C-alpha cells in the first residue's frame, strides 16, 4: 500500500512540478515575444550580429553582480549611428534592465555594467540605429548555484553609501591621448532595493528604491544617459568608452525612485590616462 501511495505521489509530483514551475524550462515558455510587444511595441527585430555584441559570463557567479558588456560593431565608415541600446534580462521579475542613450557626439562604443540575474535566462541587447530600425542580439546565462542570491550582502550597510559618486578615467592601451579616445567609469552608491520581497514580519512589500535615471556630460554635451530598473546591481557601476571633445569638466546627475537627485562634477584629466 505504501509503495503504491509513493508511486501515485511521485507521478502527481511530476505533474505538479510541471504545473507550478514553468520557469524551470524557459524554452517551453519563451517570454521574448511578449517582451518585444511590451518593451518595443512589436517593432520588427533585425539580426544584430553586425551591429551590437553582448558579453556575459556563461554562469552568473554572483547572482547579485553579473558583469555585462555591450559593444557596438558598426564600422567607422558606416553612415548609421547607434542611438540607444536596451538591455533585457528575459526571466527577471522586471526584464527591462536598462536603456542607454548614446550621446550624439560622444562616439560611445562600449558600455559595461553589472546586473542581477534571478534565473536561467536569455539576455537580449537591442540597438536602435539612426536608420530607425531595431537590431537584436542575445546571449544565455545560467543562474548561479549555491547560496548566491540577487540580494544585498550587507543589508544594514547597503544604504550607507547612498548618493556617493565616483568618477575614474582609465588608460586606453595602444591609443595616445591625441586620439581623444577615453575610457571612464561612474560609480553611484545606492542600495537598489528591488521591492519584490515581502517583509516576513510585517507582511508588507519592501518598497522598490533604485536609481532610475543617470545622465553623464562632458561640459554641456551628453555622453551617455541611462534609464535603469531593479535589475541593475546595488551601487550602480558603468564603465564606458567615449571620445573627448576637449571638455574640461565631466558631470553626472542621477535620480532615484524616491526623487533624490545626486549631482557631481570632476575635472577631466587632459592626459587622457
Amino acid at each position: 500500500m505504501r509503495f503504491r501511495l509513493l508511486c501515485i505521489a511521485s507521478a502527481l509530483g511530476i505533474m505538479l512540478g510541471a504545473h507550478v514551475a514553468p520557469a524551470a524550462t524557459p524554452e517551453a515558455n519563451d517570454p521574448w515575444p511578449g517582451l518585444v510587444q511590451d518593451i518595443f511595441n512589436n517593432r520588427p527585430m533585425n539580426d544584430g550580429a553586425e551591429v551590437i555584441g553582448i558579453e556575459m559570463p556563461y554562469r552568473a557567479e554572483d547572482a547579485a553582480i553579473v558583469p555585462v558588456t555591450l559593444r557596438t560593431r558598426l564600422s567607422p565608415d558606416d553612415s548609421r549611428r547607434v542611438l540607444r541600446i536596451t538591455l533585457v534580462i528575459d526571466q527577471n521579475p522586471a526584464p527591462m534592465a536598462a536603456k542607454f542613450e548614446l550621446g550624439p557626439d560622444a562616439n560611445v562604443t562600449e558600455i559595461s555594467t553589472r546586473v542581477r540575474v534571478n534565473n536561467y535566462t536569455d539576455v537580449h541587447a537591442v540597438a536602435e540605429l539612426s536608420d530607425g530600425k531595431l537590431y537584436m542580439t542575445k546571449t544565455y546565462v545560467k543562474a548561479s548555484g549555491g547560496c548566491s542570491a540577487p540580494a544585498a550582502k550587507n543589508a544594514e550597510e547597503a544604504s550607507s553609501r547612498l548618493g556617493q559618486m565616483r568618477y575614474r578615467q582609465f588608460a586606453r592601451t595602444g591609443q595616445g591621448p591625441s586620439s581623444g579616445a577615453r575610457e571612464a567609469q561612474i560609480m553611484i552608491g545606492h542600495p537598489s532595493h528591488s521591492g519584490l520581497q515581502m517583509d516576513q514580519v510585517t507582511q508588507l512589500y519592501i518598497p522598490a528604491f533604485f536609481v532610475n535615471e543617470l545622465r553623464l556630460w562632458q561640459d554641456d554635451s551628453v555622453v551617455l544617459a541611462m534609464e535603469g530598473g531593479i535589475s541593475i546591481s546595488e551601487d550602480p557601476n558603468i564603465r564606458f568608452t567615449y571620445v573627448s571633445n576637449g571638455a574640461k569638466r565631466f558631470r553626472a546627475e542621477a535620480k532615484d525612485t524616491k526623487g533624490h537627485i545626486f549631482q557631481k562634477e570632476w575635472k577631466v584629466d587632459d592626459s587622457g590616462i
Partner: protein
Amino acid sequence: MTSNMALGVSVLALLVAFGTSTLSQAQEQELPVSEVAPKIFVHTGQIALMTRENDGATANIGFIVGGNAVAVIDTGGSVREGLRLLAAIRARTDKPVRYVINTHGHPDHVFGNAAFVSDGTVFVGHRNLPPALAVRGPFYTDAFRRIMGEQLLDGVRMIPPTLLVDGTTKLDLGARTLTVTSWPTAHSDNDLTVLDEQTGTLFAGDLVFLTHTPVLDGSIRGWLRVIDELGTLPAQRVIPGHGPVSEWPGALTDQRRYLETLASDVRGLIVRGEPITVAADTAAASERSRWQLFDDYNARNATTAFSEIEWE
C-alpha cells in the same frame, strides 16, 4: 473550469505527498554522527555542491546534549537531512530539543529547520537572520527546487528565529551553558558562533572553512577582521561550517591566507584599472591547488570582493 481542475489535482497531489512524507518521516535513517567531545555530536558534510543525490547534506551540522535538553546547531540542506539528524538525536537521548541554532541563513544550514518545529523548541539566530531569510528564502527555494527536485524541496520552509542574538546570549541546557555570539558582516551578514566552554568546542558555522573553498557572501574586509577576533576565543577545537573538525586556532590559517591573497590580488587589479571580469578570471589563482570546489566559488568570491574593495 480547467483551472479548478488543475487546482483540485494540485491539492490532491499535495495531500498525497504530505501523507507519504509523514509515512517516510518515521523511517528516516539516522544521519551518521561522531562524538567530537563529550555529548557533542557532529555530522561532517560532503565537500560538494548541494544535489538531489546528496540530500543537500554538505554542511557540518550537529547537536549538544545537556543535563535536561538538547541544542541543535544547523539543520542541514533538506528536511530529509533534518529528519535524519533528529533520528540520530533520538537514538542517543530522549531529552527534548530546546534550541535550534542557525549559524546563518544559507540553504545548506537552514533547509532542515522544518524537521524540528515543535512546541517548546526555540529557533535561535543572528538579529539579521529574519530579514535575510525573508529576502532570500523564496529565491533559494525556487533555485534549489530546480537543482534538487520537488521531492526534497517540498517540505522546506523558512523558519525565522524567535530568539535573536545581538552580541552574546547564554543558552542553558541544564548543567551546560552555551555561549552564542553574533558577528559583524563577514562570511554573511548574519553569522553566529556557538561555544561550549566546558569542553572548549566551537561551532563556527561558515565563519570557518577548511578544505572547501571559503564562500564570501558578506564582506571580505569584515571577515578578515572577524578572523582576528575569533582567534582569541577560548576553544580547543572547531567544527567549521565545511571541512574536518580541527584544532583551534590553527584551523584559521588556510582561510586567512586565502582571503588575504584574494583581497590583495583584487586590490592590485583595481589599482591597475582592470575590470571586474578580469578579477573573476585571475584573482587568487595561486590558491587553486589548495582548495576543493575552487572553480565553483573563487570567481564568485573575486566578483564579490571587487565590488566591495573598489569603494575603498
